[in-house]
């Protein structure tokens, strides 16, 4: 914690404490956090949700929400303590001395204002440009510097007309407009696709290096932290438990929590999941499935989007297929089709010799017991008026299975939940526990296939690791087959033996996990693999889009 630095630190946070007032009393969020950032240095603050890492960033900016107890400890910027400074003085610091890059780019820009004006606002607030025209001109320059093509045109756009990555570049332009010496980036790329994430992090590294700006990078992703930061501070339960050079922290973690975190992080180099028996019969055969959405355009006329465009694959009994793709690739639509919650416009989905696209409704309902879903949003997947036991028993009830209470107890045991959990409500459980309940419900009818749509992407890494282990064990124990949909290649490697890469509705590549990961043939697969933080870099550094 007290590592020697030659130059005095740009930012020094000492024994910071933050508590929120709630109905139940005051809840501490940060309980004594200390860290330093030197000029030109990048420091990553790593932690899981609820660790207090975002509160540290907001406390430095003096932007903690209403209902926060007065902060104790000190936040020194170039030797000046910001804690207790009057609001008026803090306004001069924000945007001018400290820039802020927030988490959710699309929501963090004012939806009803053109982005150029939003950049110019910084200049006007701090009196950096005289007059409206000069500020607008400088704003366009800043947008150009942030790597946006055609900045003059982009400046006239509204946020909803830009992609998430472009919005984040606008926010970087806003953060840098006042030429601050310190930049605080709170999960700047978590809402973005992995390829976009990489370009943005490259850009941030580039601008901070050139201007000598200090960067406090707040992230949940240990791989991003160690790849991008010189030093890493690990936060857990409101405290900074370990600080040090990135290589040391990930290579030889000293604190038990850091060790757990490092072990939990999925890796691209771990051995892939065991494949299905080579002589296994096919369970699911998907042939040329196609789903087209027709939406009405505001100008009149219709837009036709082919969400799934001629996808075919075969899944053997006990096999596990990973479907990988970025947002908008059609992977979730594919999940809906496999579950027959949606109907394909063309193609066949054959389960055990029965074509699910052409069976009558009554027969389809009976066949549903063989294919069960697990969705991403465990909170929304459980009816809050049900207890856990009622939720798990629901499919049993639908099929009139007798002895439900015993079966529910067995299922809770199977997903490693205590029997007492059956009486709880979903809102009383943590995210990981809720996802276990969803898995138990999916297993209730002893299905042959689980369709898992991003089942762990809403979870913290340590929780994620435990759910992935559970899924791997269940597959072994019950001989289940999985279709596992994810944007995260490392996670897929851990659960699947085969992988299918989707892009814009098409399957661009499929094969054994070991083959595809070590020798991707399609350029898109190569780009995806290269973009994974901490992963091997097989593609040369391209220019930003």
């Amino acid at each position, binding site marked *: 914690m007290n590592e020697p630095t030659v130059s005095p630190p740009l930012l020094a946070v000492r024994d910071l404490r933050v508590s929120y007032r709630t109905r139940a009393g005051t809840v501490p969020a940060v309980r004594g956090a200390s860290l330093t950032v030197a000029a030109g240095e990048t420091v990553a603050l790593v932690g899981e949700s609820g660790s207090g890492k975002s509160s540290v960033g907001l406390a430095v900016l003096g932007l903690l929400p209403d209902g926060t107890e007065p902060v104790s400890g000190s936040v020194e910027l170039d030797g000046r303590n910001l804690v207790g400074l009057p609001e008026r003085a803090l306004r001069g610091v924000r945007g001018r001395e400290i820039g802020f890059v927030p988490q959710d780019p699309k929501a963090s820009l004012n939806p009803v204002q053109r982005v150029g004006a939003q950049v110019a606002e910084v200049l006007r607030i701090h009196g950096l440009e005289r007059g409206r025209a000069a500020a607008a001109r400088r704003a366009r320059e800043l947008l150009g510097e942030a790597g946006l093509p055609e900045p003059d045109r982009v400046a006239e756009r509204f946020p909803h007309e830009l992609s998430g990555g472009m919005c984040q570049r606008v926010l970087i332009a806003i953060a840098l407009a006042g030429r601050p010496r310190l930049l605080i980036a709170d999960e700047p790329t978590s809402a973005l696709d992995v390829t976009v994430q990489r370009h943005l992090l490259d850009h941030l590294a580039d601008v901070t290096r050139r201007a000598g700006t200090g960067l406090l990078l707040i992230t949940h992703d240990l791989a991003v932290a160690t790849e991008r930061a010189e030093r890493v501070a690990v936060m857990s339960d409101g405290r900074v438990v370990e600080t040090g050079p990135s290589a040391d922290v990930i290579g030889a973690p000293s604190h038990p929590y850091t060790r757990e975190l490092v072990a939990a992080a999925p890796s691209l180099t771990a051995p892939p999941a065991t494949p299905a028996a080579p002589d296994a019969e096919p369970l699911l055969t998907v042939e040329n499935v196609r789903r087209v959405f027709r939406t009405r355009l505001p100008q009149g006329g219709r837009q036709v989007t082919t969400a799934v465009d001629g996808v075919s694959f075969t899944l053997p009994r006990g096999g596990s297929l990973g479907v990988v793709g970025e947002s908008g690739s059609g992977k979730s639509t594919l999940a809906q089709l496999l579950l027959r919650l949606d109907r394909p416009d063309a193609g066949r989905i054959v389960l055990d010799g029965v074509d699910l696209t052409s069976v009558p409704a009554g027969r389809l309902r009976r066949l549903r017991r063989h*294919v069960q879903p697990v969705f991403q*949003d465990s*909170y*929304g997947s459980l*009816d*809050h008026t049900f207890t856990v036991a009622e939720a798990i028993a629901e499919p049993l009830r*639908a*099929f009139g299975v007798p002895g439900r209470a015993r079966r529910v107890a067995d299922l809770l045991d199977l997903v490693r939940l205590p029997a007492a959990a059956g009486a709880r409500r979903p809102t009383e459980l943590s995210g990981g526990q809720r996802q276990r309940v*969803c898995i138990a419900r999916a297993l209730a009818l002893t299905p042959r296939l689980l369709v898992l749509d991003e089942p762990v992407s809403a979870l913290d890494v340590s929780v994620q690791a435990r759910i992935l282990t559970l899924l791997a064990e269940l597959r072994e124990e019950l001989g289940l087959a999985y279709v596992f949909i994810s944007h995260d290649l490392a996670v897929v490697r851990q659960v699947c033996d085969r992988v299918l890469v989707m892009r814009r509705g098409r399957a661009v590549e499929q094969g054994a996990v070991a083959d595809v990961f070590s020798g991707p043939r399609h350029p898109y697969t190569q780009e995806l693999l290269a973009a994974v933080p901490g992963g091997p870099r097989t593609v040369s550094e391209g220019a930003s889009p």
Partner: protein
Amino acid sequence: MVTETEVAGEATSTSGTGTGTGTVSKTGAARGWARRVGRRPGLLLAVLYLVLVLGWTVAPGLFAGQDPLFTDPASGLVPPGAEHWFGTDNLGRDIYARVVHGTRVSLVAGLLAVGLALAVGVLLGTLAGYLGGWLDQLLMRVVEVLVVIPGLLLSLAVVSILGFGTTNVAIAVGIAGIPNFARVVRAEVLRIRGSAYVRAAVAGGSRTPAILRRHVLPNASPPVLVLAALDVGGAVLSISALSFLGYGAAPPAPELGAMVSAGRDYLTTAWWVTTFPGLAIALVVLATSRVARALERTGVPS
């Protein structure tokens, strides 16, 4: 891929850690509600007032000793005092007794109107929302046509067809309230139908009636019941307005709106004749809406 779900998950895991402090079970909600009432003086007053009005409704004679219809022209327009708490009107009737009986009539009529709007609105909204198709199109078109006409005008038109009287006025106000309920119920049903838990239930083989009974009904009722509670005040206001215009019960019957109207001839000489019935309406509306708001925040106890 950090989305709202993580935020939601975070929020609940902090409120519901360990022993389950954030219990939303029925007893928990009722207990939390009782605690809330105790901590908010405004809400406490509203609840107490509604309890009093309930007493007036059940046994008006117990609270107002005098006959609301008893006339005594000799002691007309007596100002408020020990004998007549709220004074008397031009015919010497005791205004307090008339307010007690009038409040009772207003509340009962308001509940009748909301009950009618709720029953028909829930039926139409559920059918439209769950079955969809041409039925949805047709019902929503009808609702659209009804929305075009302002509620008061619609009630007036219905009263002109049904004829005058408190019950007819309540029915007219109820009919005018149907479109709103139908729309809210339909929106709720659509929201629940599209939820992940209903998708999971469909994938788990549940049939449509079971989904309606076990998912849609329990999840749609709390917000709809809160809306109904919020609507009681509005219905009382509309009914009293129609009564003020003279479309309610025939003259001797104590109705708050009609009492205000009758008192207009004595504005300069006897302020109490209009003031107390008007205050009574405002208090009933305030109390019901205060309680409804509290229900909106904490959920409906059962």
